[in-house]
């Protein structure tokens, strides 16, 4: 583990040496300089949050891997926004949530999306049935044909993931 001082020095060196390159790389991928600048910035913020620099021998490969993840997140989010707006357009306007509520809903959809991609099919089904369909554990057990203990274990797993995503670094190992 690096000391706080050395750690920040490392990040600063990485930033000075590679920020320009990273920005260009992202611009080419995204075709939008504004988004590229945002994501390049986010890469370094991610690094600061991680508090360890794992592989500084290949800094550009390392930064590129993080950036690639952010690019995928970005597209996923765009897809979700797009799909949401289409669904919304089909509903009566009286039932439409306010702009503020919509922003919140898109945030939560993004959260569910990234959460689901990390879970196994059974855990995902359990999560959706519990949180979005409002079923209880015994109902989910009957629905999926598994024991109640399995449902509870799966749900606990999904909730641990939710917690880790909502409270990053807040006490979950």
């Amino acid at each position, binding site marked *: 583990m690096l000391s706080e001082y050395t750690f920040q020095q490392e990040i600063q060196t990485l930033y000075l040496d590679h920020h320009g390159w990273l920005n260009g790389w992202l611009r080419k991928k995204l075709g939008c300089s504004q988004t590229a600048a945002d994501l390049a910035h986010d890469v370094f913020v991610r690094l600061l949050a991680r508090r360890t620099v794992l592989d500084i021998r290949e800094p550009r490969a390392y930064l590129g891997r993080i950036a690639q993840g952010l690019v995928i997140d970005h597209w996923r989010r765009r897809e979700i926004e797009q799909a949401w707006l289409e669904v919304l357009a089909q509903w009566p306007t009286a039932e439409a949530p306010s702009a503020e509520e919509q922003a919140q809903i898109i945030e939560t959809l993004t959260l569910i999306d990234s959460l689901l991609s990390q879970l196994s099919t059974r855990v995902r089904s359990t999560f*959706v049935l519990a949180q979005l369909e409002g079923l209880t554990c015994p109902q989910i057990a009957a629905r999926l044909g598994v024991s109640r203990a399995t449902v509870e274990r799966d749900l606990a797993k999904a909730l641990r993931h939710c917690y880790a995503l909502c409270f990053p670094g807040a006490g979950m190992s």
Partner: protein
Amino acid sequence: MKNCSTAEQSSLTEACTPQDVPAAIVATAIDWSIRLTFNMPEQEVRQDFEQWLKDNPLHRLAWQRIQTVNGRFNALPGEMVLETLQSVDKRRKKSLSRRHALKLLVLSGVACAGGLSLHRQGQWQYLMADVTTATGEQRRLVLEDGTELMLNTSTALSTAFDEQQRIVRLHHGEICVTTGADDRFKGKRSLGIHTPQGMISPMGTRFTVRIDREEVRVAVREGAVRLTPTASGPAGVVRAGACGILGRQGVRSAEPQPFGDDDWVDGILAGTSMRLADVLKEMNRYRRGFITCDQRIADLPVSGVLQITDTDSALRFLQHTLPIDVLYRSRYWVTVQPKALI
């Protein structure tokens, strides 16, 4: 220094400098959440929980955070969200590069928001998507043979129709069936309602089927139905006005309920001298969370018509007409107890 990384993350994060909660405490808080939010807990469980909450300020913090996490999902417009996730899923399926598509929404048959659609599979075979209702939701369906299904709160079913038979599989919940003439096949195809405990074969009729823990209750309004248990044992016939139970031990006749078996189709719960505890238990099926009833008032008689489509106003009605207090400990936790003497 902890950082609010991106705009995206900062809004997901309750606080930018989260106080550390040991993983073990978070895990315990999650266990409590599962017992209290996603199950029907006993009174002692809630007392133990209250004690745990008091034991340590970190317990309370962990609990608040889990509630925050759960709250995000509770507040969502469920149907619209499911529809969006399904739409995203479809798009990603088309694109091969998206390997981690949301397969679950199709695999687990959560086709709730799309309603009921028929997919052609071969010339004669129709395979219908699963249909579900959320807690408090009811839905009416008309199948291709003219059979009408009314789905009650938190119900899941699927159907499979082919040249020989019409199968409705009730996974959980309750339905009211009004059989159709199946004109196109001149009534040659048999209709069967399949449940884990056995099969119900109607003979031109209207009836309700309710899965209740280990048993299936079948109440017949018109005509008659045959009950065939999954377990060994003889089949039985239930005629109009009667009730039958399909259970582990086979078929038996059922006691009448204090309220009509198909009252819910009209969105009500109606009866005379119903036990308050029974009424609250029944109302609880239509709302998320739980309603607890103090033992001292459990036997109070309730007569009249209660709206199950709006359980909050039904609770207000009970409070006006009975010597009881209805306390909302949270949106999901209602306690009914004897009226306090001022």
